[in-house]
């Protein structure tokens, strides 16, 4: 029996993984989530902004990494629209991020009755990462003369009072790659722009040094960060669902490793 | 009488203090020096001056410049007090400029420094900040070349045993016994990647053995140049072993250039052809585990090797043997016994000794507050 367990058909494991993902998705429930300090910091910072302030979100993820970062975008934008804070969206690294950003902005706007051009705007993509960051520091219009659907920036109501980073209270970089370092080097160091990051699980640990030095005002870490932010604004969504489901998969893997080792030790003792 | 004297004294003191205040208030910026900005392309001039005392009353500085017979003009915006350098990057290359630093008080009073001697911006041919980099590069190149020639002159160079390489023969032998094919995957890297070249060299050695046993060797490629070179490499091995007719060009083919489509294609090959041995050597990304798990599921002996450190954990978990990082490069020397690889392997070891030395020495120095090693290694743009 133990020998069988040790050489179990991998398809049984595949079925278990599938079940552990599908079943939690059919039910709504919540695992209590401790809000970590970096998430709390970001929430507090946005909570402290006056109505009418503006934040910028840089969408730097592609089709293979959006599941973790998109819920963060939704949660933060919900918070902003509730407080009357305007949102400017751009994409720095991936051209494929434009349709993704468009989709999530539209969804949240519909839910919160926000109006395009007055409460939020999506400027789109321009090549040349560091040059885009530096250029917007002098004048946003010098880089983006129009938004992603080619409406001239002069005709967008909310852009009338915004020339450069001086009118932007925060930059939130939702990243799956190395764009955060660019925002810190060029945006923060040169223009003193406040930076926060929301990143996929794989690159979270690279962010801690910046958090320690205060170069980042806050950090959302993967599904978990999104779930924590959703808890703070009291609107459980994809992030909460994601971290709950992902928890079960983690527990399944840990369980499998434990069972495998028990079987291994029993087997070895018998052989001895 | 006493009252009058008192008044006179008070007035005198007041006058004196006011005049002192005024004379101290705005001293002209002192020690103004102007130089051509070092290590640039000649498009800027740097102006430096001494910091004023804190109670000097200066609130801003304004830089003024004059070109040849032109007028004095203001450059840039007001600089906050406390500034002591300014880089003027709006100059015309080759023209002579003189500068004045003007101190401005909160009330708008101004006082100018003396006009400096004329300076022009010139581009430098060598970046002195990169001298350490340049020297280390030369030294390392010399070490590599020296060791290669040393090895070529017939000197024995020892290479330590690399776990996993013994398995190469075992894997090929098993494939031959079972009458199944061998699948060789070179990863995603282009021809410029060291892992790809190392992998091709190992493939050349594997091909020598498969030529002798006439075991089919299948190589799906993701990069067209690599494909082209690999065909030559394998063909040469077959010819060298005296089995040119056993070489089948169609066994080495282009699959696709996209990562997951490539993974899908290789997975399909694995389950359909059931190779007895799979080599995963080269640079890999996320598809590493897709390939290695599928290979494991068909029961093939898997020998992996990569310098993509993010993918190593997955190869370690799913393959029978894994060459870790530099072991992949060492394997080429170990298998081919080519003096070029042996020599550079030794040269790289010298490089490691230098790195270890710098780390150990640096730790000691830094702990005592001496930071010239870190200064030497400073990032320069």
């Amino acid at each position, binding site marked *: 029996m133990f020998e069988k367990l040790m050489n179990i058909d991998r398809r049984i*494991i595949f079925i*278990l*993984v599938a079940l552990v993902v599908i079943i939690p998705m059919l039910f709504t429930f919540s*695992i*209590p989530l*401790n809000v970590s300090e970096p998430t709390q910091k970001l929430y507090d910072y946005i909570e402290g902004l006056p109505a009418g302030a503006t934040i910028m979100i840089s969408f730097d993820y592609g*089709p*293979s990494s959006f599941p973790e970062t998109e819920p963060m975008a939704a949660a933060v934008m919900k918070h902003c629209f509730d407080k009357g804070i305007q949102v400017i969206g751009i994409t720095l690294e991936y051209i494929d991020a434009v*349709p993704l950003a468009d989709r999530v902005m539209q969804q949240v706007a519909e839910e919160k009755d926000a109006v395009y051009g007055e409460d939020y705007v999506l400027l789109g993509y321009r090549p040349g990462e560091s040059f885009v960051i530096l250029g917007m520091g002098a004048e946003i219009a010098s880089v983006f003369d129009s938004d992603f659907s080619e409406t001239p920036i002069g005709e967008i109501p909310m852009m009338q009072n915004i020339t450069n980073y001086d009118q932007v209270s925060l930059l939130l970089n939702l990243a799956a790659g190395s764009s955060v370092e660019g925002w810190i080097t060029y945006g923060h160091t040169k223009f003193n722009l406040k930076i926060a990051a929301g990143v996929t699980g794989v690159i979270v*640990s690279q962010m*801690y040094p910046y958090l320690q030095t205060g170069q980042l005002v806050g950090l959302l870490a993967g599904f978990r960060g999104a779930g924590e932010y959703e808890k703070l604004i009291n609107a459980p969504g994809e992030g909460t669902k994601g971290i709950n489901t992902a*928890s079960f998969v983690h*527990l399944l*893997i840990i369980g499998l*490793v434990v069972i*495998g*080792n028990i079987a*291994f030790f029993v087997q070895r003792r018998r052989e001895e | 009488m006493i009252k009058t004297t008192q008044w006179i004294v008070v007035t005198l003191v007041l006058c004196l203090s006011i005049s002192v205040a005024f004379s101290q208030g705005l001293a002209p910026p002192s020690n103004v020096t102007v130089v051509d900005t070092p*290590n640039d*392309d000649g498009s800027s001039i740097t102006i430096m001056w001494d910091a004023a005392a804190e109670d000097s009353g200066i609130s801003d500085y304004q830089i003024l410049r004059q070109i040849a017979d032109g007028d004095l003009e203001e450059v840039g915006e007001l600089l906050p007090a406390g500034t002591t350098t300014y880089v003027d990057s709006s100059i015309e*290359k080759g023209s002579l400029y003189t500068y004045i630093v003007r101190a401005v008080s909160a009330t708008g009073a101004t006082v100018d420094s003396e006009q400096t001697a004329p300076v022009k911006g010139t*581009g*430098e041919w*060598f*970046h002195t900040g*990169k001298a350490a980099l340049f020297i280390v590069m030369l030294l*390392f*190149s010399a070490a*590599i*070349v020296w060791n290669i020639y040393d090895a070529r002159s017939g000197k024995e160079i020892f290479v330590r045993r690399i776990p996993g390489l013994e398995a190469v023969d075992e894997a090929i032998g098993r494939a031959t016994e079972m009458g199944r094919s061998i699948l060789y995957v070179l990863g995603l890297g282009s*021809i410029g990647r*060291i892992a790809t070249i190392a992998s*091709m*060299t190992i493939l050349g050695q594997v091909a020598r053995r498969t030529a002798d046993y006439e075991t089919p060797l299948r190589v799906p490629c993701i990069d*067209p*140049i690599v494909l*082209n070179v690999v065909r030559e490499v394998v063909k040469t091995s077959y010819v060298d072993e005296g089995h040119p007719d056993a070489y089948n060009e*169609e066994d080495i*083919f*282009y699959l696709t*250039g996209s990562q*997951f*489509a490539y993974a899908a294609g290789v997975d399909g090959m694995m389950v*359909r052809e059931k190779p007895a041995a799979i080599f995963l050597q080269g640079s890999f990304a996320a598809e590493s*585990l897709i390939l*290695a798990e599928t290979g494991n599921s068909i029961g093939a002996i898997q020998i992996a090797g990569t*310098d993509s450190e993010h993918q*190593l954990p*997955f190869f*370690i*978990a*799913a393959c029978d043997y894994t060459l*870790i*990082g*530099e072991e992949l*490069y060492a394997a080429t020397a170990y298998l081919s016994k080519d003096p070029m690889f042996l020599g*550079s392997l030794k*040269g*790289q070891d010298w490089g490691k000794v230098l*790195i270890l030395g710098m780390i150990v020495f640096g730790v000691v120095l830094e702990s005592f507050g001496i930071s010239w090693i870190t200064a030497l290694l400073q990032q320069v743009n």
Partner: protein
Amino acid sequence: MKQQVPLVLCFLFGIVMILTEFSPHTASQATYKEIANWGRVISPFVFVLAVVTLIQTHWTRIQRRVEHWQYSLVVFFGMIVMVVAGLPYGPQHPAFKWLFNNVQVPMDATMFSLLAFFIASAAYRAFRARTFEATLLLLTAVIVMVGNIPVGDLLWPDAASNARQWILDNPNLSARRGIILGVSLGAISQSIRIILGIERSYLG
């Protein structure tokens, strides 16, 4: 002609790229930019090789009716559909985007998501405490996994995520650094060999 000229070209271009890196002068920087641009111009042509060999491979499969040759027709079908949809009006054309979003992205994303299954089966099989090293491997993996999920904080408040963070920042970082140092020495030494014409295997 066949061997010497390419080696000389390789040497010249390599040396120029190195020297200009150390020289801030306008002339050097302009040279650097121009040559880097040449590299960008040549690289798309590489793809010609790819398409030619792909067509050759599948064409012979169809001609010889090898096993599963019908699927080679599917390859041609997919390729032609994309080219017809994208080539005349460019990649912004709705038909091209529709195909990309509804056919190619779902397949690509699904291939990527197979990793979730494989990571579970690989962990089950490989994480056995057979040796001391294997035990270290499995213990750190489990600690980091527990630290990543909220349940971990329920079991050991803060300890789990702190332990995870410490492992990632310390032993993990130093191991990775060791690998990077060795690997990049190897990469640099190879580049030196290529420029000096000692390494020629890339010429085929």
